[in-house]
Structures are given as C-alpha cells and as structure tokens.
C-alpha cells in the first residue's frame, strides 16, 4: 500500500515535470507557477500548523524575508546566467530558519488561538519594517530584481521547474517526517503536549524544528516569487492574504496529511484564478473565497483527505463484517470489542493512511 502511494506520488511529479513540454499557453503556465508556490507553502505550513498543531498566521512574514533577501542581494549583484538567484535559495532558507528559531522559541510558549494571534502580530510587524526601513527596503516604492536572460516564449519554465523541485523537497520532508520518530513526537505534541512532555517526548525541540524548516521553505518560495515578479512591494511581499490562502488550502485538503495541502492548493488556487478572472480585477473574488472557507468548515471540518479516508475505512469495515460472524473472537472486556485479524489489518492500514 505504501509502495502504491509513493509510486502515485512519483507519477504526480513526473507529470508535473513533463507539463511544460506540451507548449501550454502562457497563462496556464503562469497559473501553474502560482499554484505550485502555494502548494509548497501549504506543504511547509502543514509541518507546523498540521503536524505540530501550531496554527501559525505569520508565515507571510517569512515569505517576505525570502523575497527581500533575494531582492536586496541582486540589487547589488548582477544576474548573468539567470540561475544565480535560484542558487541563493538554500541560503535564504537557512537564513529564514535562523531568524525563525528565536521567534519560534518565544511564540511557541503560547498555544492554539493565542499562538495564532502572536504570529499574526509578527506578520504586521514585519510589514511595518518593510514599509518604514526606507534605506533598506525602499519603503512603499519597493525593490527591483533584475530579470533572467531568457526569451519571453520560455521565460516561465525555469521558475516552473525550480518550484516543482521545491514542492518535491517539501513533500519529501513531510513524508520523511511522518515516517520518523519526529512525526510521532509531533503527533504527540498535537494531541496532548503536556502529557507528551512528561513521557520524555522532546516537545520544545521537535516543534521548533518543525517551525524552522517550515518558515525556511516558505522563505525560499518568497525568493522565487521576487525573482519571478521582478519588482516587490511591501503590501504584496508580506500579505495577510498569503497566510490565509495557505491555511485555507491546508484545511481544505486535510491537515497533517501528506498530500492534503497540495490537493488544497491545486483546488483553491485554480478556483481563485478563475474567480478573479470571472469577477474582474475587483476584490469581489475575496467574498467568494470567504464563502469557500465557510463551506469547508461546515461540510468538511477535517478536510478532504481525512474525510475520504474515514469513509473508505468504514466501508471496508462493513464489507469485512458482512461475510458471516466467523472469528468474532472471545469478546473484549468493557467497550473495546475484539476484532478479527483481517479487520485489524484494515484498521492498521487505515491509520497508516491517516499519515499519508
């Protein structure tokens, strides 16, 4: 089953990598680039918001850190081959993770809703800096990043491929985390952090690690974005809407699952582009966006993948229970009825699926 899943994942990335060869229209590739950006960021957010259960609303600040780091560096250095700004990305990721460490160490002393408020404050503080540190950020006038030396017809492709690679990195990190004891520790933190602390789980360490990796990946996307746009302004580089979008995508697809955030990003980003296209340049599409959020909360509070997995599990259980009462075991003690071996297997794979 895991092999089936990982080969499915591989197929997804092969298709993604092959897409530009089909000479897609410019607007399609452009839309895919934004979808990929959000897919990476939603995946990254899921590490801390999903796996650790710390709903950060400040991730856009680190997106901005990445964007400004890229813009500042290439404001003073020239771009010749066009690939240098991408080669900077790992350094940007490490930089953001290092900035995130003390911030996370303080912010993660709070939990749930208080943590959300503390981190959204961070976002506005960062935006305040971007607007007001004129000598560094250029204030409201923004900063320019020199464009890459590619022809207009294929200009988007390098960005696209880099983002596919980043998505591979984010999904790979998530998969590795889920399979390791870090993932198990994070699940304990999410479930009952105080209890986890008392049974020797390194709660502070694992949640901080998740936070730093998460904001590092987010900053790398910010770097790609700044290079792609060519010009950055504070209100777009550090935008609360980015935070809201990635949280929404993760919730829609399914928190703490491997593919949920990616699925959410592909659904919502294409929906948003379509809505923005249909409803014009006004902000009306934001209302539609809010509507989507309400519908998710009403109909799928746990997200698409967990709900689907639950349904599948129940169906399999029913199917298993159908062919006669053979092997009902000796009847459990109070409450937990003992199950036949085959059902146990299904439950095991279903719980495994919850991590997928």
């Amino acid at each position, binding site marked *: 089953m895991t092999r089936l899943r990982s080969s499915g994942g591989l197929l997804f990335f092969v298709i993604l990598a092959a897409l530009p060869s089909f000479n897609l229209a410019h607007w399609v590739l452009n839309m895919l680039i934004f979808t990929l950006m959000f897919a990476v960021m939603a995946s990254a957010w899921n590490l801390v918001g999903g796996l650790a259960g710390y709903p950060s609303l400040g991730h856009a600040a680190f997106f901005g850190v990445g964007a400004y780091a890229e813009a500042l560096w290439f404001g003073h250095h020239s771009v010749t081959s066009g690939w240098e700004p991408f080669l900077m990305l790992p350094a940007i990721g490490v930089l953001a993770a290092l900035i995130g460490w003390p911030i996370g160490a303080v912010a993660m002393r709070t939990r749930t809703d208080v943590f959300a408020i503390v981190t959204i404050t961070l976002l506005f503080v960062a935006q305040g800096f971007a607007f007001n540190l004129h000598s560094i950020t250029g204030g409201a006038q923004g900063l320019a990043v020199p464009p890459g030396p590619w022809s207009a017809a294929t200009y988007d492709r390098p960005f696209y491929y880099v983002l596919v690679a980043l998505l591979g990195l984010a999904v790979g990190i998530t998969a590795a985390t*889920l*399979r*390791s*004891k*870090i*993932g*198990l*520790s994070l*699940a*304990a933190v*999410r*479930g*009952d952090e*105080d*209890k*986890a*602390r*008392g*049974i*020797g*789980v*390194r*709660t502070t*360490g*694992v949640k901080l690690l998740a936070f730093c990796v998460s904001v590092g990946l987010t900053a790398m996307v910010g770097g790609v974005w700044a290079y792609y746009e060519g010009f950055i302004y504070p209100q777009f580089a550090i935008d609360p809407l980015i935070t809201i979008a990635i949280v929404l995508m993760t919730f829609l697809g399914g928190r703490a699952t491997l593919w949920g955030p990616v699925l959410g990003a592909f659904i919502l980003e294409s929906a948003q582009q379509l809505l923005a296209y249909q409803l014009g340049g006004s902000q009306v599409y934001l209302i539609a966006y809010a509507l989507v959020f309400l519908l998710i909360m009403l109909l799928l509070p746990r997200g698409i993948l967990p709900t689907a997995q639950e349904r599948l599990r129940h169906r399999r259980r029913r199917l298993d229970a159908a062919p006669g009462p053979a092997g009902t*075991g000796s009847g*459990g*003690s*109070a*409450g*937990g009825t*003992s*199950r036949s071996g085959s059902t*146990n*297997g299904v*439950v*095991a794979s279903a*719980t495994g699926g*919850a*991590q997928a």
Partner: protein
Amino acid sequence: MSPLLEVTELTKTFGGVHAVDGCSLAVEAGTVTALIGPNGSGKTTLFNLITGYLRSDSGRVRFNGRDVTGLDAGALYRHGLSRTFQQARVFPQLSVAENMVVAGGYGWRQLLGSRRVSRSDRARADELLEEFRLSHVADLLAAELSYGQRKLLEFAAVLMSEPTLVLLDEPTAGVNPVMIETMERHIRARHAAGITFLVVEHDMTFVMRLCDPVIVLDQGRTIASGTPAQVQSDALVLDAYLGS
C-alpha cells in the same frame, strides 16, 4: 541507604492558598507506598511538583541519589521517574502500539535516525501489550478503547522507558471492579519485577490491601506515615478525615 525519593520541605502556593506547605516525605526503594489524604490536601499538586510539571516555591526533591529539584518533566522521565494521570491521558489519534512507542524517551539520534515504529520498538511494545492483555487492540486507535483499557494503556506505556519509580495518580478511579483487580495484579507483578510505586488513591480497601507504608497528607503537609494498621489508628488521621 538513602531513600529512592526524598522530598524535603516542599512548598507551593497559588495566590494565598498553600497547596503544598512544607511537605516532607520519603519513598524507600522496593516499596508500594501510598499517598492518601482528604480532598484538597495537596496530593495532586505534590505529584506535579515531584514530576516536574510544576515548579516549587521552595524545598528540595532528591531522586536516586541526586538533586532533581526544578528539573523538567521530560528529563525526570528519562532518568526513570514516570507518572500516570488521574484522567488516563493517552493520545486518541494514535494507535495503541504508537502510544506505547512514543513513550520510549528517545534521544535526538533515534528521533532523526530511526523509523516511526521500528521493528525493535514494536517487539518491545508487543511484549508489554501482551502482559497487559491489550495485544488484540494493538492496531486500533486509542480513541476506540474503553476508559479502563486506556488506564491500562497509560500504565503500560510509561513502562517503555524502564522506570525505577512510577507515580500512579488514582489508578482505580472510574473503572469497574474487575478492572480494579486487573490493575492491582499488574502493579503487584511490576513491583515483583523491581519497580517502586507511589500511589495516590481514594479506594481505602485497595490501599490497605496493596500498599505499605502509607503516607497521609493534610493541608499540604505530611501528618502521619507508617504501616496501614498504624495509620488507621492514628488520631491525627482520623481527625483529618472525619473532622474533630
């Protein structure tokens, strides 16, 4: 030989309330020591202080020959001091086996280097689950267990780290009589295997059957300790329970 756990003049106040007020007690290695007292006498607060969940205002705690005052709960756990909670705290969204494995007290090398549930983890967990007769539910989510089974699971899980001292906070509260017997059997078995217990419990027949010595707490301090028979005839204890 010095006692396994030694609490000296421990104090904790919440606002103006002296929850634990200069409490001293000792738990000898190899005993099943009971900690009893009327409601509000500070038993749970004392547990939280000893296990590092709360920080004391003053006083010392020594465990296994070293001063552990102010040490973090996780560090104490890894040093062999485990506890369970009154309300049976398990992780409902994890499987029963995972609930066992997560309590292994791992260092960073294992966290980063070994699988979520490695073969040796699973073998170790299965061994304990077998002992606690939870093997048939090993792959269910902990959320699907009955309350009594959760209590057993929580107890079994803290044994994953091979503790020397286990603090049980009301192990029989809210479970049926059969489960109380089961719990008692497991405590006895583990005691025979060399683990020392400190048990907070309200069920007096359970305490008198299982524990020796018994320490009595009232208004945040120790008022008596001794064998069950001594404590039962102590005037101060009768006073505390029945009022004068």
